[in-house]
């Protein structure tokens, strides 16, 4: 017995030593190497699978930006080429796709994903290979916490949840909210939790909370229960493809309350599927497609000319991400991973479609603008603008909208919220 123990211990110990990584001095491989030829940028996204439309929109936005840049002569005299890999909306595929982009195609930086879970799977790969990654629209806080090579172009869940809670409680003066959350989506559960916290802290009451799983088609059971709690507003932080169905079924059941949600609602398809059922409902978003500012008008026009559809906020964020990246390459003057990272981190007052972009020390944008849009007569109307950078002054855009929206005293002014 003693002999047996000795032998097994030695065996395990020697195995453990075998398992030690061989000492390979990681020479930081520079991006596309020399200064000749195209600059290759990688993009990974859900071009097929459950979240395909988000991937498609983002992809369109990125391509539009890149074509524009190349049309204007490229960066530092070189053209930018995008290589896109599909991850089928699966996290493990995202990791492989990004590894392929980095090692096979030797991309200088990576753009993507929408769904936070896919970004979380890809980010460690970018971090360990020292290639910057910019996620256009993953709102989960954890994504940029992976490391100093990971950046984000949008606001994060707590910010959005707070803004909606404040808007509903303080601006609309609604005190009873019911929540219908997508339990399968980190985005939805995160947003719901943040909404609930602020709403309750404000003095509001959450009268009911039910969950569904994205891809479900029948929500009547949950809605029946929520109807019984008689809320003033139904907060549904889900994705647009489920929202339409939820709205229709809620109206069938005789619920008259408005629905409210976050940026996951944003899509030209939202109103197509939801139709009249969504009338009066509202959600928070990154930008307003009818915003009169010249930057937005120009973007919308170009996008419509090229793709024949209205750009949603994912397309806008994809567009901004690509342009921020190219701007950083221009400023860095090189495609070296570490230098490019520093250049992206120093992005300041970059004028994007979704507002002015300044990256903070946590690699999230500081004080991004948030708009509240309401569906009125089958169109989106701007109801409120939360612009932390604008201080307490009423945002110009909000003044142009209907009387109900002029109350901007509750505008979130603290920049700390984004951190």
């Amino acid at each position: 017995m003693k002999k047996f123990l000795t032998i097994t211990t030695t065996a395990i110990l020697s195995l453990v030593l075998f398992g030690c990584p061989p000492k390979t001095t990681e020479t930081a491989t520079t991006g596309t190497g020399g200064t000749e030829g195209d600059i290759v940028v990688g993009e990974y996204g859900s071009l097929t699978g459950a979240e395909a439309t988000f991937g498609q929109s983002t992809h369109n936005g990125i391509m539009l930006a890149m074509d524009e840049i190349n049309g204007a002569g490229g960066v530092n005299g070189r053209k930018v080429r995008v290589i896109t890999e599909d991850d089928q909306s699966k996290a493990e595929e995202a990791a492989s796709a990004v590894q392929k982009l980095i090692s096979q195609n030797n991309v200088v930086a990576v753009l993507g994903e929408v769904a936070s879970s896919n970004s979380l799977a890809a980010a460690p790969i970018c971090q360990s290979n020292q290639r910057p990654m910019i996620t256009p629209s993953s709102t989960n806080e954890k994504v940029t916490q992976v490391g100093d090579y990971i950046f984000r172009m949008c606001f994060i869940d707590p910010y959005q949840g707070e803004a909606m809670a404040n808007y509903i409680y303080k601006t609309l003066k609604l005190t009873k909210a019911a929540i219908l959350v997508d339990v399968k989506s980190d985005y939805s559960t995160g947003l719901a939790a943040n909404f609930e916290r602020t709403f309750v802290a404000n003095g509001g009451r959450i009268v009911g909370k039910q969950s569904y799983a994205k891809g479900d088609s029948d929500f009547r059971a949950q809605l029946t229960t929520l109807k019984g709690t008689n809320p003033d507003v139904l907060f549904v932080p889900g994705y647009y493809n489920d929202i339409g169905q939820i709205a229709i079924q809620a109206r069938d059941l005789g619920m008259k309350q408005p629905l409210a949600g976050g940026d996951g609602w944003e899509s030209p398809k939202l109103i197509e599927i939801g139709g009249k059922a969504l009338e009066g409902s509202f959600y928070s978003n990154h930008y307003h497609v009818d915003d009169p500012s010249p930057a937005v008008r120009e973007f919308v026009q170009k996008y419509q000319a090229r793709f024949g559809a209205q750009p949603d906020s994912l397309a806008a964020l994809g567009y901004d991400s690509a342009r921020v990246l190219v701007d950083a390459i221009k400023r860095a003057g090189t495609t070296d991973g570490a230098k490019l990272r520093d250049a992206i981190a120093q992005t300041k007052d970059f004028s994007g479609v979704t507002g002015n972009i300044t990256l903070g020390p946590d690699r999230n944008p500081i004080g991004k603008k948030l708009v509240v849009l309401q569906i009125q007569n089958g169109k989106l109307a701007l109801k409120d603008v939360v612009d932390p950078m604008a201080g307490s002054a009423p945002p110009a855009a909000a003044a142009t909208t209907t009387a109900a929206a002029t109350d901007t005293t509750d505008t979130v002014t603290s920049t700390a919220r984004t951190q």
Partner: protein
Amino acid sequence: MQTLLQNLLNGIAAGSIYALIALGYTMVYGILKLINFAHGDVFMIGSFVGFYAGNYLAKHNGDAPSAVNAAIAMLLAMIVCALLGFLNERIAYRPLRNAPRIASLITAIGVSFLLEYGGQFVFGPDPKFFPTLIEKNVINFGGVVTTNYQLIVLGVAVVFMGLLQYIVYGTKFGRAMRAVSFNFETASLMGIPTDRVISTTFIIGSVLAAVAGILYGLSYPKIDPLMGIMPGLKAFVAAVLGGIGNVPGAVVGGLIIGIVEAFVGGSQFSNWRDAIAFIILIVILLFRPSGLFGKYEPEKV
């Protein structure tokens, strides 16, 4: 009380869709002992045919929902799905008739993948809005609300159940089906054209899937190429629950799953809804290893 009744009704409505899909599963399983995992995707194709046909007709015959448009769309979907079911059996399953049954299971999975990925390739991966083929009416029974769609789905499910029961037990073809199901080789020795019987069964199953696809599109007007996976799986569970191969069992199983899901969905445990169908299944199979209406066949020596 009203909530209770409403949820019962919600459950019956959702369950009827499961029941319709489950009928197709149970037919094919009954005769071939093959879990046709592609069935849920045939259902998706039915929906998409309805989508394209409905939109085309709306463009040419005017926008207003009309019974004629609905009938044509339904017929087209049935034809396309029948063809698909036939080809599916011919290409992917028949060559494996004498191979281990698990081989055809893998081709079934392969066909299912093919229809899902192919659907995303051809139709595009984004969700589509299913056209309103029939005007929707909300019906209110003293506070308990339903729509005419839900009643249609339930009615169609029950009618098809009766029809299938009649085909299987009341016609000569049904007798042939049962013979093939009972013993394939003996049946063929008795002069039953087994290949034709199996093909026809697949066609019937696929037509059912097409009907389910259209009705699903009407009730839940958002369709996408991956829409068949979850309803397909739940319907399969329903078929097993009722005793796979048993026609009334499929409908009862579908309704049970629909109702239980509705009650769980409306309770505070709504986050467990996806698991509940399987939990019931496991519990029932532990007590009745062949499902509710299935005959338990102890192994023969």
